[in-house]
């Protein structure tokens, strides 16, 4: 084990690998910053470049690009209210109110630092689990995935700000829309009415772009500027934000843990982790009502989870060759191109490569944070640009991003359509974050409940980890009430 580590250090310290990481960093960050371009697109674009590289170099290149996307994406989410990629949508909940209060610099500083901390913790989790990857992945089957998805759903109410009725309504509607398209088990296409576009189901990027970006852009176009510049200069704010991550280190670590665990489970997508972390942070806080008004904890939790989940996603990928996320699926392809085959053999023969990847992940996250922190003062000034200039550029990025998902103009139309929906939601006080969360979780709940019943019958509920997860869910929901009762008793 120790020789593997030493060998890993040696392998990573090669100039070729360092160069690969260094060149992939700005690419990943850029893809994160540009709305609509996700980590998936980054990987797809970069794979051809990898053909010429040797093993670790190519992997380091791809992994770096993918892992830092969310660090870049958080900046766009906070400054512009547009999620750089769907997992950054959770950062908008508190990030945008912070920006509106003139605390954009602090929010970005916190988000970026939390990303780094989360990424490091995710890498550490991967490292610790490397020798025991197989039992861990084996433990989380369809039954556990279902309960986790249900847990996410129950936190829907927690994620919402303002009226719980409206939050739940939006979430339920999101769940419903997710059922358009092929039903996973019977293969019957639902509610598609002959439209080829709807046959595959609605795509998340046009939805996320539409409901968040278009209302923001409308407000900009109506003349509202992004923030009134109160408070200290962006530079100073930034360090405040960074320090906040360490002041709330327990929160950062817990959120990272949640992100890593969710990342390990192959079926659950990356969008869920930040929302669950956010909800957990809110439920666990002494004053949950503050969340949503623009508190730094609301930014730290999702961003920390976002980057930690990358470390988690590597677990099933390396242990079984089962991709932990769509991005990992592409990374797997790269493994094959480079002549490596992840799976049980892989870890036995190439444990050092596994560890080297952990190192790469850690280093990439650190440097990504450093770069973004350097750029933040400049980036934060974007907020002060005249809307006349911002609107066309952002509209360009949004439409290009939507189009690039599948080279399909209909995605652009969908973005506008969901933009209209988003405007309605904002106008009527319905929660867009809960809507997105419902949309993401709907298919998971259906799919994995059906599979669980098919394999185990109703007794799947009695599996050990399932019971633990159910207990955690109940605890999480009851937490604020328990806390209040405990405080009352303490006062009496």
């Amino acid at each position: 084990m120790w020789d593997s580590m030493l060998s890993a250090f040696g392998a990573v310290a090669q100039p070729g690998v360092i160069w690969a990481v260094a060149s992939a960093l700005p690419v990943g960050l850029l893809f994160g910053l540009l709305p609509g371009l996700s980590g998936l697109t980054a990987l797809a674009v970069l794979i051809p470049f990898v053909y010429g590289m040797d093993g670790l170099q190519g992997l380091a290149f791809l992994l770096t690009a993918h892992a830092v996307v969310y660090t870049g994406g958080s900046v766009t989410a906070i400054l512009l209210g547009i999620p750089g990629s769907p997992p950054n949508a959770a950062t908008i909940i508190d990030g945008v109110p912070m920006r509106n209060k003139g605390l954009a610099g602090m929010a970005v500083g916190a988000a970026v630092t939390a990303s780094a901390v989360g990424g490091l913790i995710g890498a550490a989790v991967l490292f610790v689990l490397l020798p025991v990857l197989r039992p861990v992945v084996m433990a989380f089957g369809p039954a556990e995935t279902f309960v986790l998805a249900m847990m996410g759903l129950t936190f829907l109410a927690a994620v919402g700000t303002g009226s719980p009725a409206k939050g739940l309504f939006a979430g339920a509607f999101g769940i419903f829309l997710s059922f358009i398209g092929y039903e996973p088990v019977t293969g019957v296409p639902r509610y598609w009415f002959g439209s080829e576009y709807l046959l595959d189901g609605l795509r998340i990027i046009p939805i996320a772009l539409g409901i968040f970006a278009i209302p923001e852009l409308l407000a900009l176009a109506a003349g509202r500027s992004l923030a009134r510049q109160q408070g200290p200069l962006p530079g100073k704010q930034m360090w405040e934000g960074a320090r906040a991550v360490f002041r709330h280190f327990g929160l950062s670590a817990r959120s990272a843990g949640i992100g890593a665990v969710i990342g390990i489970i192959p079926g659950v997508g990356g969008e869920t982790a930040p929302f669950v972390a956010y909800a957990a942070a809110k439920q666990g806080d002494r004053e949950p009502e503050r969340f949503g008004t623009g508190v730094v904890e609301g930014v730290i939790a999702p961003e920390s989870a976002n980057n930690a989940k990358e470390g988690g996603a590597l677990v099933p990928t390396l242990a079984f060759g089962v991709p932990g996320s769509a991005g990992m699926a592409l990374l797997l392809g790269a493994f094959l191109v480079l002549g490596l085959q992840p799976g049980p053999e892989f870890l036995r023969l190439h444990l050092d490569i596994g560890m080297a990847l952990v190192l790469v992940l850690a280093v990439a996250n650190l440097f990504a944070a450093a770069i973004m922190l350097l750029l933040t003062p400049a980036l934060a000034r974007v907020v002060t640009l005249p809307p006349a200039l911002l609107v066309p550029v952002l509209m360009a990025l949004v439409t290009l991003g939507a189009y690039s998902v599948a080279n399909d103009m209909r995605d652009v139309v969908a973005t506008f359509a969901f933009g209209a929906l988003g405007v309605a939601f904002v106008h009527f006080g319905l929660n867009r974050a809960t809507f997105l969360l419902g949309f993401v979780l709907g298919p998971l709940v259906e799919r994995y409940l059906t599979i669980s019943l098919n394999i185990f019958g109703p007794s799947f509920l009695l599996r050990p980890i399932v019971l633990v997860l159910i207990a955690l869910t109940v605890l999480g929901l009851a937490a604020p009430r328990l806390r209040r009762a405990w405080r009352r008793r303490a006062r009496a």
Partner: protein
Amino acid sequence: MTRAAATSGFVAGLVLLADALVVWGMTAGNYPWAANVFPGLAAIAITAFGLWVIACPAAGLEEAEPLSLQAVLWVAALLPLLYLAGFRIGLPLYALVYALAKRTGVLIALALAAGVALLIEVMFVRILRVPLEEGWIVERLM
């Protein structure tokens, strides 16, 4: 109409839409019963929560941000423009026209349009090799 009333209307509309779709699936759509279960559950949730919202529609409404028709038109106009002129011409054109309409200096507007065109060329055409829509007009000309 007050915003609260409009909210109720909107929510009611969505509830009816969801319920109608589910009923359609169960009857004319001929979906196997298993395929109707989850949408049915979701529709029940939508109806229940929807009714709860309609009961107190004013909750959670913040100070009104009036919707500007002009802004809506500007934003919406981009879509037909893209269909007509494609991305490579349409987006820089949009930038130019928008900046000029908002009374930015001509030089700055031109620079903005050039910047957008450059971004498209470098990022999307060269690097990403995305096959961008050319637009109806360009296709007629070619």
